């Protein structure tokens, strides 16, 4: 099964502790983009003029994808822009993906404490090898400049859009970063449009930061 969102979740969280590797807004927008990317890849939704359109309203097998697609269908007549969907889905996307991983038995919940107070929930990977796999696979391929399949390429695109690539390619020479840049440019148009807006939205979040 193609589960880009799971892979992005693994990539964006520490494989041992489950703590985020990115700032909160980048995780939210990245996870939202990963959910939309799954539906784009399964050709349930498309991108037309920077707006999300429904291509296929038959329900996907996965429960989370079913839920997201239903939301898109319910608002189909309004044809919201990618940026609107990223902002909307971002509010719950990380938690939703974590719950999908929880249902599949890949993570368990732990209370996150600060100064003895519970401040949130951490989803801790059950198996470090499973959690570290997307990072190991992608990092190896990119560092060896090997051509990427579609799915790893999408993941590489999400990593670049969210700023995770500096972690993915930590210490790699500049040519490897160039290789990543060149590779993601070969993605098909709807995916590139999605990643374009993900990158821009995360950049804007830096500018419009407020407490």
């Amino acid at each position, binding site marked *: 099964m*193609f589960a880009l969102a799971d892979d992005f979740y693994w990539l964006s969280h520490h494989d041992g502790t489950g703590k985020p*590797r*990115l*700032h*909160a*807004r*980048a995780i939210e927008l990245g996870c939202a983009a990963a959910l939309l990317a799954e539906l*784009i*890849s*399964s*050709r349930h939704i498309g991108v037309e003029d920077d707006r999300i359109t*429904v291509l296929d*309203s038959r329900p996907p097998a996965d429960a989370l994808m079913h839920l997201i697609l*239903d*939301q898109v*269908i*319910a*608002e*189909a*007549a*309004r044809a*919201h822009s990618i940026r*609107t*969907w990223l*902002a*909307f889905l971002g*509010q719950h996307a990380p938690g939703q993906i974590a719950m999908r991983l929880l249902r599949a038995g890949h993570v368990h919940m732990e209370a996150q404490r600060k100064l003895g107070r519970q401040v949130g929930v951490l989803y801790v990977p059950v198996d470090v090898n499973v959690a570290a796999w997307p990072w190991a696979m992608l990092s190896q391929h990119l560092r060896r400049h090997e051509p990427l399949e*579609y799915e790893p*390429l999408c993941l590489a*695109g999400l990593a*670049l*859009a969210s*700023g*995770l690539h*500096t*972690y993915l390619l930590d210490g790699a020479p500049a040519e490897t970063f160039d290789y990543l*840049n060149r590779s*993601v*440019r*070969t*993605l*098909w*148009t709807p*995916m*590139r*449009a999605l*990643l*374009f807006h993900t*990158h*821009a939205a*995360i*950049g*804007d*979040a*830096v*500018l*419009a*930061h*407020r*407490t």
Partner: protein
Amino acid sequence: MTTTKPVRTSNVANTLARSRLGTASVVFFVMAAAAPLTVTAGGATSGFAITGSTGIPIAYLAVAAILAVFAVGYVAMSRHVVNAGAFYSYISQGLGRPAGVAAAFIAVLAYNAMQIGLYGGFGAVLSGFLDQRFGVSVAWWLCALAGWAMVAVLGVLRVDINGRVLAIMLLAEIAIAALFAVVMVAHPAEGGITFSTLSPGFLFSAWIGAALVTAVTGFVGFEATVVFSEETRDPKRTIARATYIAVAVTGALYGLSAWALTIATGPDNIVAAAQEHSTELIFTLVQPHVGQFVVDLGHMLFITSLFAALLSFHHTVGRYLFSLGREHVQPGGLGNTSRRTGAPKAGSITQSVLAFVVLVGFALARADPIVHLFFWVTVTGGLGVLILMTLTSAAVVCFFARDRRGEPLWHRIAAPVLATVALGGVLYLTVDQFAILLGVDPASPLRWAFPASFAFAAVLGLIWAGLLKTWRPDVYDTIGLGANAAPAANPFADAAPMAESRS
């Protein structure tokens, strides 16, 4: 049950609307950065002392009026440009790209000057307070460097002071400033209560330019309202309302407070008193009437207010550099952010390094922290922002001259033209009277050195624009249009599609 027909209300729109900002939040965000006590206790008193002009109170009110007129066109244009909040995008879309890049260089210099100058005030006030209340003698530059270290760390960690804390501090500052003003008016010097320093006649006196730019400096920060235009519930009205409220409240507070100072000392003695007591003047005047506790509270709020302003301007510079780096108008490396915190890391570090160098320079030169660093440098920053506002006003006129975009005449032409003329007039007077502003001899080369730094920055900007046009036409074409339009800003722009999903 799903339906493709439009439901009556949009779940997406409603959910997103809930997290949007109202007028009050926007006013708080920008006014907290303006830090009222910094201006009423520090800016106004230094203004009296150094410029020797008694017209400071009326200058605050006059500048508030000019800025309100400026805001009309500025807010109107913010509805039609992306990347709102950065003066250079208005200027490049109104007056052309070379002017935009020149404005970007001026802005970087001006906001840096505002921020770095505040270290002088922070260092001197903190060191004075420690000495006076605890008998601990610490050099001003050590206090300033301690503040610098905190700002540098908080900048990279992207820690802002919590919004609620900031709001409480702001309200407390306003309350203290208003209380002090009332106390001072209630205990006038021999002459009794007189409105002579509020006389419009001062606006035509010989020294008014220096007073006006001192006042402009106090308002810097209000222009940030438009940054939030995309996050408000009703961008059309919220931003306009918030901007006018911010200008009106700060203007009234500053004007009243500066006027109260002249009442307590008597209009004829204010300059001498300010020269004697510097930033302590306001506290010295109210001490006999309100007691030590309130004065201590005022002192502490003065220090925290300076720190909040320091941090806020630090973030402003960091974000400005980030946005310029992201669009490749300045080296792309400045567009780097911290992965873990999302702070504009490169921009923040650049600002901190610059501030450190300047601070050490002033400390080694044994310069006076209040006169030479706090007043000279922040007022120079104010001059830069004044230049930017004048150019922006002209840009608004040109922008709407090409396309009306459904804005009424008052927004498009009348108000912006009026603002351009008024701001241009203030700018002329300021540069003409810069020697008075600095308190130096009219023949001193310093009077030209400070304004010339902006001319130098502008020329550098123009040269840089020319180089960009030759070397990076893709970057040049999208200057000022925001990151969404700039292909150089995004690795996912252009190029031919190839890899497609096979599922």
